[in-house]
């Protein structure tokens, strides 16, 4: 069975309701997620900026330390070449100052005073070895003039500081600083006048510097640092850092395309997240900021970035998501109930109409209709009611016409008797039942004698009256179950059913003739009319209506030819030859 309108409507309405609440829930959920992510991005960018400021401040502090040491009065003297006991004492003093500084700052892996002369020979050098300061002297001192932190710093004016690029320290024999990511902060050493005599260099352990910087950041934050070409210096995956040192470079702008403008367009900061850019930042929220790195080189910068797992950011969204799902489910259930109720309310009067229409068309029954409603259904009901009434009256008229037509088709208008058609139909039906019951049946062919003369003498109107009277008389003479019909002109035919004995037939026929012969008063004149009657009997004289009528006609004809006004049973020709005419 196909679903009805009520089901369809209910499904449609419920679907609309569920869809509406589902979509609203979905958009609320996604909007909330992106809001959370945006807020996290903002916070992360603020943290990144803060970290950058602290990084810059830490570098400034290191610069201050280097300036402080460089400004010691013995520094310029020791920067120049020399020897002797006094120098030895002063070198020890400076070395002690270096060691004291390193004790305060565990991130300082090396503090050196390097002379401008003798190819940048180290003059006083203290390294850190297993967190303890260790003095490097004599033969161990190396020439450093070819390193940028020496030749670049020597070009700076008094009080300025140089910041090296962040790199892996490949200088041999540097104890704790060896093969570690470091940066160097240096200050030129000047006397009151004259050229720079040397440089004071502090080597800083990048890892411990950043550890202190990010100490109060949550544990699951990732830290990124790239130099101005984009080479990673710090990355949660250490294998990707200092690629240039291993002959295979890994660039920040390749890992995070969004950072490209920081390197080539001078953009200051950028944020990205795994929701919008799952390719670049799968499962992460990231913020990057570009920070000028060196006071001596305005073009030098680093890019610092922080990452935060997206899951932590979206925790809030998940609980909201769950309550949204519950809400959507509840609203969907409500939508289903409402849809069913509403669909039924709409379809009930329609069903009434449909039922009324069905009953009307099948049984002409006038069922109750929702006529009082003021809506479209009410209009429809009223229209239908009107239509139903019209149909009803049209049908009644039609039926009447039909009956009239049927009567006209089967009756002779003049006498009101059944006509030939009706007679033959009745005869055939009677033949059926008679043959079933094996009873007798007789057909009497009646022809008025000298009817033509009546017509000629008294006119057709009179003739018609005669025919009318004959019809009445014939009807009155036979039994109610017998049938009298007019075949046309002055010919009548009578069907006698259930004839018990064919010997009675001449008597019946004579009785008919007698009734015909009675004078009739027409137009003030008495008129007597006779008739000739031929009789055929079923089954003896024929089995079909045609045969019976034809044989009755033949018998009647024989009466006519032998003097009229008599009756005669049909006899087949072979019998007739033996009988007197």
């Amino acid at each position: 069975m196909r679903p009805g309108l009520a089901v369809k409507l209910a499904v449609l309405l419920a679907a609309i309701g569920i869809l509406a609440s589902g979509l609203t829930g979905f958009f609320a959920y996604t909007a909330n997620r992106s809001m959370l992510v945006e807020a996290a991005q903002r916070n992360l960018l603020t943290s990144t900026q803060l970290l950058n400021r602290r990084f810059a401040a830490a570098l400034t502090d290191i610069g201050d330390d280097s300036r402080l040491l460089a400004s010691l009065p013995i520094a310029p003297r020791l920067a120049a070449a020399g020897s002797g006991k006094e120098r030895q004492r002063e070198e020890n003093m400076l070395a002690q100052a270096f060691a004291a500084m390193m004790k305060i700052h565990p991130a300082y892996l090396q503090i050196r005073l390097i002379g401008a002369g003798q190819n940048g020979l180290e003059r006083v050098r203290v390294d850190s070895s297993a967190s303890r300061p260790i003095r490097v002297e004599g033969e161990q001192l190396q020439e450093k003039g070819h390193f940028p932190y020496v030749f670049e710093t020597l070009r700076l004016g008094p009080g300025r500081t140089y910041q090296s690029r962040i790199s892996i320290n490949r200088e041999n024999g540097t104890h704790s600083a060896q093969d570690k990511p470091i940066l160097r902060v240096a200050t030129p050493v000047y006397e009151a006048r004259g050229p720079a005599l040397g440089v004071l260099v502090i080597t800083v352990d990048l890892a411990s510097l950043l550890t202190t910087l990010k100490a109060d950041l949550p544990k699951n934050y990732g830290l990124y640092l790239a130099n101005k070409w984009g080479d990673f210096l710090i990355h949660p995956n250490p294998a990707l850092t200092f690629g240039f040192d291993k002959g295979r470079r890994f660039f920040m702008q390749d890992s995070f395309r969004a950072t490209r403008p920081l390197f080539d367009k001078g953009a200051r900061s950028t944020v990205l997240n795994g929701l919008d850019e799952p390719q670049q930042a799968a499962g992460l929220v990231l913020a990057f900021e570009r920070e000028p790195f060196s006071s001596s080189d305005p073009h030098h910068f680093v890019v610092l970035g922080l990452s935060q797992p997206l899951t932590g950011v979206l925790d809030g969204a998940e609980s909201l998501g769950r309550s949204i799902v519950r809400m959507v489910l509840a609203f969907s259930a409500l939508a289903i109930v409402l849809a069913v109720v509403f669909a039924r309310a709409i379809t009930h009067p329609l069903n009434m109409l449909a039922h009324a229409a069905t009953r009307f068309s099948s049984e002409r029954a006038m069922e109750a209709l929702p006529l009082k409603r003021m809506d479209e259904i009410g209009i429809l009901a009223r229209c239908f009611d009107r239509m139903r009434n019209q149909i009803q009256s049209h049908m009644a008229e039609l039926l009447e016409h039909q009956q009239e037509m049927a009567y006209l088709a089967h009756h002779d208008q003049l006498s009101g008797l059944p006509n030939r058609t009706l007679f033959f139909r009745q005869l055939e039906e009677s033949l059926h039942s008679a043959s079933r019951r094996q009873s007798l049946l007789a057909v009497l062919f009646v022809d008025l004698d000298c009817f033509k003369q009546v017509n000629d003498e008294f006119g057709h109107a009179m003739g018609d009256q005669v025919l009318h009277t004959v019809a009445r008389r014939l009807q009155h003479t036979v039994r109610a179950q017998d049938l009298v019909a007019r075949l046309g002109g002055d010919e009548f035919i009578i069907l006698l059913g259930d004839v018990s004995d064919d010997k009675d037939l001449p008597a019946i026929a004579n009785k008919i003739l007698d009734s015909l012969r009675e004078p009739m008063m027409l137009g003030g004149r008495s008129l007597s009319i006779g008739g000739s009657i031929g009789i055929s009997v079923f089954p003896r004289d024929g089995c079909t209506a045609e045969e019976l009528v034809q044989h009755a006609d033949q018998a009647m004809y024989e009466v006519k030819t032998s003097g009229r006004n008599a009756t005669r049973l049909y006899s087949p020709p072979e019998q007739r030859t033996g009988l007197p005419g």
Partner: protein
Amino acid sequence: MRQTKRKNLLRCGLLVSFFFAMRPVLGLETLRVLAWPGYADPDVVARFEQRYQAKVEVTYVDSDEVLWSRLHSPQDQRFDVVAANTVEIARYVAAGLLAPLDLAALPNTRRQSPRFQALATIPGLVHDGRIYAVPYTYSTMGLIYDRRQFRTPPQSMNVLWNPRYRHKVLAFNSAAHNFSFTALGLGIAHPFRLDREQMKHVTRRLVALRRNILTYYTLPEEATELFMEHKVALLFANYGTQQLAQLRQAGADVGYVLPREGALAWLDCWAMTRTAPRPALATAWINYMLDPGVGALLSRRQGLANTQSHPSAQESSATIVWLAPVEDIAQRESLWRRIVSGDRPERF
């Protein structure tokens, strides 16, 4: 009736799938290429694919170490052809990774300049009379000089030590090449095979060079920056003519010379692996790579010299010393670290 129909269908299906399965073998053979970025650009590869109705899969490497490990990939990811320098080729031959080549199947080798047709003169390519690789591209390590600071182009390697250019020289931070070119400058016959005495001599000479230079560089960009910033007069061009182009782009008025003592050069060659399943296709690829058109594209796009074009007069007359394996790279590296760190000559 129905049963047979179904059987026929099944047969049809099997035929179709068989056809598709056979396609790569019948029509499109796959060639797996291991090369350096820029050696097999997509358009160059496409032309080969069209010409030989083959499919080419190029895998790029960015270091000799990666190349070595790729060549030892599992069976199903074996490569057919590989581009590597002469030192690496020698190593692969020793490890039995390469198959000998038939020069007759490489007609394009006859269009190469005579220097590259004389395969026996290039170390590492010929073993036991059989040829294992053919040259593809190379880069010399000459000297780049500032034309405004040199009236005539420098002739000798030893100009790097000239105190006249003190702190105006840039050297490359590398263990192997620096020992070799210093040895060349000292007139040592076998710069890649230094004995103890020679090594000591060369080391001291490198300390002397350190005292004469401004600094060492690692990346070409770094060298360009230093060159411009510090008015450098002379630099040892580890990256060859590629570096020259970069400097000129930065606005430097520079020239490039190959010193008369000889210039080191790396030479990348194409070789076929021993496991290549379709040697004919692999050979066709190598021959195609030696096509002058492909060579010209390489030079135009990468700034690398190809082996077909006629070199400049200066270059063709110069001695080019192809890189060869050194006697003890670990020793050179440890010495080099000490030199760079600033150890004084007395300590060597």
